[in-house]
């Protein structure tokens, strides 16, 4: 593609820049990978969660066949006692799967050879298994989590998580806000230059170390204060306090940023009215920075909910529905760590339950993160 140029002047025409285009394409893919990761998380969590809710778990009904069964025929007799069988139940005899259509005392009317199985003859006294599928309602509202007996109510795990997070926020919120106010409104620049790095060190400590700290320092401390009988060796309170310590630097530094972003002129206006430093800080600066502070707290809550190692070490193993912070209870994250450590076989209900819990956890934290981002964006608009 050439153009007429005066005086033989060189052409300005575009030359193909393959390298430029190639690099730009590659960089775009790098950016797009993040979306892929999110999609990956959703697909993986979603897919395995779906199989968690669709996998059949066979539970012995304790009502063996009371009468020999031919390969054809829709009526079977079962033993007395055992579990109650209802119309709509899926049952299994040896390899054959059937659906119960109606129940009349010990006689069941069934549809035979379901789910790709072949109707076959079965002898007397063969055990009948009933399918026990986890329903969404059971999962979200059930109060017991005990995979061994097929109980999958996530509530105990959620309450334990909320317990540790609440304790953590009760520690981190007032302390973090106070530290932020001190650093931004009171401390000299020299004090700030010493204190901030120290708090940053706290933020850099691996959580497994803080878990160790919770178990070997915080728990004995709590036990010596409240008594060994009140405080169990593993307890959510100790884990919660240490999670609070973990997120303290996050709360204080984000809050300090929010407070520092309040324009100097606002403070000057307050001082000029004769306000004390405290009044300026608490009544003018803090309300002005409110959305920034709120974003910090929300983000910190999300971090507390997702925190794993501290609770895995110090909060105890075994789901328990309790409102007592001195008792052991297993959080969602703690449970995931406990059942996945070791040789977890794929396609077991335990493996699938991991993803269902993960999905709940993911949505809880994602929700909080997005709210926090929204709030931050709004607060930026005000001052920039």
């Amino acid at each position, binding site marked *: 593609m050439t153009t007429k140029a005066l005086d033989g002047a060189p052409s300005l025409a575009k030359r193909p820049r393959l390298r*430029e285009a190639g690099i*730009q394409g*590659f*960089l775009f893919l*790098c950016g797009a*990978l*993040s*979306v892929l*990761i*999110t999609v*990956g*998380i959703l697909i*993986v*969590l979603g897919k*395995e969660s779906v199989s968690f809710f669709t996998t059949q778990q066979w539970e012995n009904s304790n009502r063996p066949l009371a009468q020999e069964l031919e390969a054809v025929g829709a009526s079977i007799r079962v033993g007395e006692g055992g579990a109650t069988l209802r119309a709509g139940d899926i049952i299994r005899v040896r390899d054959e799967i059937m659906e119960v259509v109606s129940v009349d005392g010990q006689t069941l009317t069934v549809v035979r050879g379901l789910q790709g199985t072949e109707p076959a003859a079965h002898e007397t006294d063969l055990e009948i298994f009933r399918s026990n599928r986890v329903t969404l309602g059971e999962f979200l509202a059930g109060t017991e989590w005990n995979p061994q007996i097929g109980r999958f109510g996530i509530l105990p795990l959620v309450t334990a998580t909320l317990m540790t997070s609440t304790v953590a926020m009760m520690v981190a919120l*007032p*302390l973090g806000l*106070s*530290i932020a*106010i001190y650093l931004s*409104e*009171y401390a000299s620049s020299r004090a700030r230059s010493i204190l901030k790095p120290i708090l940053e*060190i*706290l933020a*850099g*400590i*691996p*959580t*497994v*170390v803080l*878990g*160790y*700290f919770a178990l*070997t*320092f915080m728990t004995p401390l709590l036990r010596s204060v409240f008594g060994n009988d009140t405080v169990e060796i593993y307890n959510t309170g100790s884990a919660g306090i240490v999670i609070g310590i973990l997120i*303290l*630097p996050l709360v*204080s530094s984000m809050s300090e940023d929010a407070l520092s972003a309040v324009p100097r002129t606002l403070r000057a206006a307050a001082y000029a009215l004769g306000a004390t*430093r*405290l*009044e300026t800080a*608490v009544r003018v600066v803090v309300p002005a920075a409110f959305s920034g502070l709120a974003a910090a707290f929300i*983000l910190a809550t999300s*971090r507390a909910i*997702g925190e*794993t*190692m501290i609770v895995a*070490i110090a909060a105890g193993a075994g789901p328990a529905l309790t409102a007592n912070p001195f008792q052991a209870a297993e959080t969602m*994250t703690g449970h*995931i760590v406990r059942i*996945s*450590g070791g040789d*977890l076989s*794929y396609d077991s209900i335990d493996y699938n339950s*991991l993803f269902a819990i*993960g999905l709940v*956890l993911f949505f809880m*934290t994602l929700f909080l993160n*997005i709210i*926090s981002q929204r709030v931050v964006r709004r607060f930026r608009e005000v001052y920039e």
Partner: protein
Amino acid sequence: MNEINPFEGNTRRRRRQGIAWRFVFQASTIVGIIVLTALLYNVINESFGLAALELEIDPASLAVDGVALEELSQEQLAQIFQANVSAGLYRRYATEKPFTERTREEVYDLVQERVIRPQLVKTWTLFETLFERDAIEAELAEKYPGARLQFFSWLNPEFVQRPQSSDPLRAGVRTAILGSLWVIAITVIFAFPIATGAAIYLEEYAPETRLTRLIQTNINSLAGVPSIIYGILGLAIFVRFMQPITSGAVFGLVDDPTTANGRTIIAAGLTLGLLIMPIIIINAQEAIKAVPNSLRNASYGLGATQWETIWSHVLPNSIAGILTGTILAVSRAVGETAPLVVIGASTFITFDPDGPFSKFTTLPIQIFQWTSRPQAEFRNIAAAAIIALLLLLLALNAAAVLLRNRYSHRY
């Protein structure tokens, strides 16, 4: 009067209030520092201290002609070993490696392990060791009459060099440190180029479109996803779905692909790579944003292409910030435990990892595993391992600070 001055003379009360609250704010800050101190004290307190050992045979009784055990020659030690263990055990060791070929130190260790056979019965903290010596000796005399008291520094050169062992006296963290280094190497190789590339794209190329905003929001959100979720993702994708690749079977590198089962260093490195990628991206974006536009204008004004501008001006002027951010993200990865537990890092490994398809354990996993044991002496070695981990992190952060100071630019 009130009409002349309608204000209550409350300055004094307000001042007092101010002072009280100032004290509260200051105290909160001090609490933060106290917590950090308590944490370090706690770890150091457990890392050093007295321990009571019960020995099978008093080493003094093994002295030959008044020469103490420590000073005996290799042959003498070999004789002592042969004399004190069963014939079968001796033969086993002799066939494994003839005693004439073993060094003096090896034989000495064998005598310690098999003949003297020290057993830890109780350990005390550094604080107790220093200030409650009398109580310790009284307890020792009462409960463990045969035991001898010895001061232990649980963190010592051998601890760092020894492989894992189920005996706390012989356990070390070499395999764990090597595992950590391998995993981190993979993490960095995987995450750094992609994350930097994404940051460059978002800051320099991306048009103001919905897609760009989506990617940006996504990255911000990913940075807040709990690390354990990445573990679950890694378990499903790298360990299970990509097992032929991550176990090395595709490359024919593993004789028996069932041994590692996809739970390998490379799976761990990739998982942690995904985890720190959003953090590196966000830090790198900040660094790139800090490069003033006047430089880009100058470059474009000379007729440079976009990539020439980025490569010659934007990157050289932001690389220090990008690297600092990367190091900080890597130090987070070094301390990560939960995702590696979920993807199934092995907790007990006595051999050094020999490549990306090897089974592995890492320092934090080792700490987790030891902390979860009920026996007190494992707490001591967990504390020692914590100090090793903190030193590793300190080194990384020092590197970040140096980098920041060295390449700080003015425009």
